[in-house]
């Protein structure tokens, strides 16, 4: 989102009056996500994104920067001031009508296709997650419907072409500098290599093991208990299981 806004093309689009204030209620339906309301929320980020992409232009601070970036010198009264941004009325009008809603990714209400998930599959999934079975037929039907719409949603997601895009696992710094910082080097391992000693003349090494028992950090897992020692037998935790029914098939 930030990168997108930083492109020059988009700059001029924002260079328009008519961008209404934050307090104005969006005219779009309630559950629609309007591009404009997202822009409103991210107005400061817009300027930051542009700074990165246009470093050479960043010579002064304050209103004069806006002038250089937006290329306008006129404070038109038709323009709507939204934080540091002035929006043209035509743009404001265009942004008032959302062009997309997440609803497009969900199955239509009146869908009558066969359920994608069977009862058995639902029970299997619940068992895998150690969750209880639904208590009533109604609850089960609701679960199946929810699963259905979620699968539909995911299938829509899967239509996006992700060739050559590495899947995101977590939001992390992936710059080369950060990777270098994180690399395990010989320095990192030096203290552990020093725990070893050479044995004999063939290159064998053996890690020196402590002769006395090492206690833990002093954290006592039994502190977590309710004090009634319901899960403790001596120094062990314990679990009880149901006695397996007699069967001859091993």
């Amino acid at each position, binding site marked *: 989102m930030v990168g997108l806004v930083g492109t020059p093309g988009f700059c001029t689009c924002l260079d328009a009056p008519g961008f209404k204030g934050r307090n104005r209620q969006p005219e779009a339906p309630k559950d629609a996500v309007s591009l404009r309301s997202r822009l409103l929320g991210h107005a400061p980020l817009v300027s930051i994104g542009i700074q990165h992409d246009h470093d050479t232009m960043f010579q002064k601070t304050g209103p004069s920067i806006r002038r250089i970036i937006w290329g306008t010198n006129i404070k038109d009264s038709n323009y709507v001031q939204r934080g540091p941004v002035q929006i043209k009325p035509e743009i404001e009008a265009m942004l008032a009508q959302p062009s997309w809603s997440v609803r497009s990714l969900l199955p239509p209400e009146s869908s009558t296709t066969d359920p994608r998930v069977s009862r058995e599959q639902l029970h299997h999934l619940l068992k895998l997650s150690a969750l209880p079975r639904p208590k009533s037929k109604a609850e089960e039907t609701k679960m199946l419907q929810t699963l259905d719409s979620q699968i539909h949603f995911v299938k829509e997601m899967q239509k996006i072409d992700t060739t050559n895009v590495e899947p995101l696992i977590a939001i992390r710094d992936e710059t080369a500098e950060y990777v270098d910082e994180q690399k395990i080097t010989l320095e990192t391992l030096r203290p552990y290599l020093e725990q070893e000693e050479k044995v*004999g003349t063939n290159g064998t090494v053996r890690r020196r093991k402590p002769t006395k028992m090492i206690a833990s950090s002093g954290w006592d897992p039994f502190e977590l208990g309710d004090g009634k020692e319901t899960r403790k037998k001596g120094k062990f935790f314990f679990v009880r299981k149901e006695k397996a029914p007699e069967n001859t098939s091993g």
Partner: protein
Amino acid sequence: MLLEPLPEQAPLRKQLKDAARASRGKHDDEVSERDRVRHERLAQWELTVGIEIHAQLNTSSKLFSRASAEYTDVPNAASWPFDLAVPGSQPLFQPAVLVPAIRAALALKCQIQRRSKFDRKHYFYHDQPAGYQITQYYEPLARDGHLVLTQQDGLGEKDGGKIEIGIKQVQLEQDTAKTQEQDEVTSLIDFNRSGHALIEIISLPHLHTPEAAAAYVRKVQSILYAVDAATTGMELGGLRADVNVSVRRLDDNTSNHSYSGVGGLGQRTEIKNLSSFKSVEDAVRAERDRQIDVLESGGTIEGETRGWSLSAPGVTRRLRGKEGEVDYRYMPDPDISPLYIHPEVVEHLREHLPPVPEQLLDMLCANYGFTVVDAQALLALDNGGRLLWYQDIVAHLKVRENDVRSRLGVQVGNWVLHELGALLTTTETQWHPGLIDSQQMADLVSLQAQNKLTGPSAKRLLRILFDGDKRSVAEIAEEENLLFMPMTDEEYDALADAVIEANSSEADVVRQNGKQAKGKLKFLLGQMMRQGDRNRIEAQRAERILQTKLSPVGA
């Protein structure tokens, strides 16, 4: 004893010699009819085995917590909150585990990945506090290694002389807590082990006999021990094996399962948690026979998990069928950063990688003149301690003697392996480094090499040292009159004259025929040896004196 204990001396050497003899192609003539039939039946099927080995890494901390990984007798005394999956606790990768892990991967000839990632393997069990195990399913630490097995490692004839087993990957993962069954319904849990670092070594399905399977596991354990990566063996629970077994008819093309890129295989089953080399062999054999029985009678093999136990070594039992199959839902762990390893780490560890047994064997044969059988025997003794003592002795000698190393090497080897070995066996003593000082042994061998001790005297001296005498060897030899005092020329002279006089007819024959009368000369020599002081006479000198005295006139 960290490794599987091996019998001392004679039985071990006999085993190795038998194996060596077998490899030369001799086999027992008596093959019973039943064996022949079984052999024929087996010849129509090909067995394929792949093995996954889990080994505890030799390191001071756990994988994702700073808790100590050193063994402690007190249950639940060595855990941090993350090891019990206390809500809010976070993983903290411990670089210490990389030293043994990378060494293990290098010793197995793998490529260390510059970047590897951690994944979650989900299943619920009381020894898995988080409900998932952290492992490396998608991007493991190391890939594409191999291991070579030869007949020295215990391969049977059916495998041929040498096989190469591919290793798919080596990955880091967590160990579970330890469970003890108190009774039928209660299990006691000790979380000391929860979160320990393990490596999982996954082989390609390249093994084709039960013997090869056991040999593979044995070899992996010895390699891991040699590079200090995993020092607790199978017997102590530090190493566990899961085997995957399938069979296919040799003349049949319908087997079309593919595992790890190897195709044309039959449906496989898994046998989990085997904890000794013999059990690996027995379980594979039992499962192979079961699968052949099922297929021959027209049935099909289900992909299931089976168990094996020592109490019924000929069979495997079903633990879990396809309907009970666990879906692990592998998922990259979002809490853990990828692991990036600098190439200098890999290069340093590779350069200083401790030698694996094969390398030590080659060294003993090349530099110390050992035979393969003797070298194997030496390496197997006392967890490598005897080898080091042996090398110390030779090192002392090198300072002393300006001699060809290999000749002395064999001599010292003889003392260390055979003479001392015999003493240890007969007195049922365990060797330890302080038993006899290496300097003393070196002195003993040195004296013998200088002919100041005869064979029998040297053995006597060894016994004195073995019994704990701390005097220097020179002192003992003096005081116990063990030194060889050679006969003087006059004594030889006198003895030769006496023998010649007593056997004048033979002497005349020698005088007349010279070199042609070898037999008679030997006879006279024998007489001298018998009549002279057994401990002091030297055959060569005696022979020379005789030759001089009996040389034909003018020769």
